[in-house]
């Protein structure tokens, strides 16, 4: 076994150890350690990706001395390694971009606790991506939930506490449903490792046994994870949670945490329940319908939002709707489009949150649109970044968002005939709605202030880290938009490796 295959395990356990070691540290030390750790994890994940690409097959790593049906395992294929790389990169950018706010929003004595949460959140994201074991997935979903909740409430202002409570309640309902589903799944298959559970599942379906519990299991797991990722009717916690927490938290929560549950869901679809069983259970149609409704309703709420953070938060609801719509198409092309959109949205949403933060800083820290007028001239880099992010979300060619919309439309053409027309129509409507609220904001920030209005908030000075983060995310956006073919091929191979 080559040494590289240790990397996924190392990155998970190192994150946990770093979280533990942050407890007695001072704020600055904890910050340095966390940033170093995230850089290290990015490198390790990238190394894993290269290794998987060069060998052309996925590998399984036993966590301990006991192989598959007895001990824990993690598994790394192309999709897992790619996701881990991009996720840790986005994490790095979100932290670097929002660092000044972390030190401003959070009391000095609690900053090291913030980094504990960040470290453990990263470990849980990686573990959810890499896991090959259903119960490990659940344990790390738990860590993920608590860490995310802590990251919302650490500001300790009134609104963020309410937001954290809401998030907690919704998220725990989701965890509960997921756990019930897993328990019943174990009861009828007798396995927790994904491959063995899948084999048992195939036997059960062929024998026609346990049809009804299987249906309940599929719906509980799907609904539980959909609630946790904020699919449309369960989205009520999102605007508050993203709008009132410190900017790094909003960025990490919207671009990574909700996505990790979707990745877990896709993994369970393919590797445990089986794609054909999923289609025949009709649950994908349910996801499809709610995805479509979310695409429109999220955008409509975003148009009505009164401040820029809430607008971006509502836009996330629409984007989650896109992803579920792609899954709901029930074809492999739809799945590739959905996974590509996960990447697009992770990169673009963090870019939007960080640039909105930059614009907000030079506008007297008021969040309403009127105060933001002309902000792009006071802070040119943030303005440009917001422009790129908006155009990408609307779907302008050369940017990542265009490719995902294109992939969705192509996937829709190959889907079940009943779904083609409605998908295309809703896609078009949603694009126009996206354009309305994003371009409205872009025009607003590029409208100069009148002379008489006074200089509200002088020219902003961005820290080097924040500027570098914005540059990096803009670059990633263009990179994903211009080199979409190789990335789509990667995703295709990754999803095939799942089977």
């Amino acid at each position, binding site marked *: 076994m080559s040494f590289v295959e*240790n990397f996924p*395990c190392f990155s998970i356990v190192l994150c946990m*150890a770093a979280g533990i070691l942050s407890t007695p540290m001072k704020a600055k030390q904890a910050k340095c350690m966390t940033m170093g750790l995230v850089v290290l994890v990015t490198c390790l994940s990238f190394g894993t990706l290269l290794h998987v690409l060069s060998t052309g097959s996925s590998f399984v790593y036993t966590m*301990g*001395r006991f192989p598959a049906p007895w001990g824990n395992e993690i598994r790394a294929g192309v999709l897992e390694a790619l996701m881990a790389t991009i996720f840790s990169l986005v994490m790095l950018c979100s932290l670097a971009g929002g660092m000044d706010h972390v030190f401003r929003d959070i009391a000095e004595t609690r900053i090291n*606790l913030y980094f504990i949460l960040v470290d453990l959140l990263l470990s849980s994201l990686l573990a959810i991506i890499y896991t090959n074991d259903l119960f490990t997935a659940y344990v790390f979903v738990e860590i993920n939930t608590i860490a995310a909740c802590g990251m919302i*409430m650490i500001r300790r202002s009134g609104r963020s506490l309410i937001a954290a409570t809401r998030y907690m309640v919704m998220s725990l309902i989701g965890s509960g449903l997921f756990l019930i589903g897993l328990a019943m799944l174990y009861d009828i*298959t007798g396995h927790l490792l994904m491959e063995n559970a899948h084999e048992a599942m195939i036997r059960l379906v062929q024998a026609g046994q346990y049809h009804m519990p299987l249906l309940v299991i599929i719906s509980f797991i799907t609904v539980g994870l959909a609630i946790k990722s904020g699919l449309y009717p369960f989205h009520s916690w999102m605007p508050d949670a993203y709008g009132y927490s410190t900017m790094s938290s909003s960025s990490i929560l919207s671009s990574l945490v909700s996505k990790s549950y979707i990745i877990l869901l896709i993994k369970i679809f393919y590797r445990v329940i089986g794609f054909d069983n999923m289609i025949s259970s009709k649950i994908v149609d349910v996801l499809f319908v709610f995805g479509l409704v979310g695409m429109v309703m999220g955008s409509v709420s975003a148009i009505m939002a009164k401040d820029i953070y809430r607008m971006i938060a509502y836009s996330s609801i629409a984007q989650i709707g896109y992803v579920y719509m792609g899954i709901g198409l029930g074809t492999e092309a739809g799945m590739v489009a959905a996974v590509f959109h996960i990447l697009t949205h992770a990169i673009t949403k963090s870019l939007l949150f960080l640039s909105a933060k930059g614009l907000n800083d030079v506008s007297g820290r008021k969040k309403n*649109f009127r105060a933001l007028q002309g902000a792009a001239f006071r802070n040119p880099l943030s303005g440009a970044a917001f422009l790129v992010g908006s155009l990408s979300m609307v779907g302008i060619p050369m940017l990542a968002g265009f490719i995902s919309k294109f992939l969705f439309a192509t996937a829709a053409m190959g889907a079940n005939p009943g779904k083609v027309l409605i998908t295309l129509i809703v896609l078009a409507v949603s694009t126009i709605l996206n354009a309305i609220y994003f371009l409205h904001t872009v025009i607003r920030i590029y409208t100069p202030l009148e002379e008489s209005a006074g200089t509200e908030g002088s020219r902003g000075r961005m820290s080097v880290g924040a500027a570098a983060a914005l540059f990096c995310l803009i670059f990633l956006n263009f990179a994903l938009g211009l080199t979409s073919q190789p990335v789509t091929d990667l995703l295709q191979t990754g999803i095939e490796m799942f089977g």
Partner: protein
Amino acid sequence: MSKIRDDYESSLWNRLTRWVDGETDPYQGKMEMQPLREADVTGDSVYNPDRLDRRKVDRYLENTEKNKEIKAFRILYSLGSVALCLLLIAVLLLAVSWLPVLGDPNGPNNNEVSARYVEKGMEESGAVNMVTNMILSYRGFDTFGETCVLFIAATCVIILLRKNEEELENAKETDWKYEPKPDAILQKMTLVLVPIIFLYGFYIILNGHLSPGGGFSGGATIGAGLILYVTTFGFHKTQRFFDEKTYEIVKVGALSLYSVTMIYYFYTGANLIESRIPLGTPGNILSSGMILPINIFVGLEVACTMYAFFALFRRGGM
């Protein structure tokens, strides 16, 4: 040149440009307005003067006497939620009735997995207690994750409830609220009981690989002993042997040693390197390889977490 329309003001294009420019106010002329008072603090601070008016509005809206719609909505909402819960219960009961019978020897979960745990567990992991073998050795990664759940939960409680030093100083004047009244019977009983509880807790932890018990249950016992002590004698006396510094040292020490053990275990296990931790003879107190030290680490962490929860909720500090 196109004709200038008289009703230019109300044309669609003009309204659109005005909306894009942000000059229109959708509520203008449609409702009674008061100029906003300037907020004291910027941002989304807790206090905001125009929230007082909003509170008035809220109070009016939530007044069910005057607002019939909200009353109807609330009734519908509670009926709906009860119906949803009943539906969920019905679905779950129905699904459970279809599941395999519990304890059926031919059931799907009596397979090769549990067979190996039962038959080979002692030989492969070295502990007599099968459950300990399973959670700390076969599925050690899950348990490490589970310990981190406890750790992060304690961190979140600290974020919410820990007071800073100034607040604790001020709290000293009102500390009598938190310090118990001296009670001779309680104190004598506690002096007798606490050592026994501690001893029993340590016994459960150290014997975790031989008999039922282990880090989680033993740690909870020790934590309960600490809580009993602090409720009887107060924080001042407890701080003589267990204050925040001790808590941090014990917790960080235990957890970091735990993670080092786990990294070693995963690395040697996956790379098929012979583990240098001897398994010993099953049944001896010093046996079962890494299970005994892990039980100790988990026990310390759980005891600290239990006590920390109590102290933070009671007083906001240790």
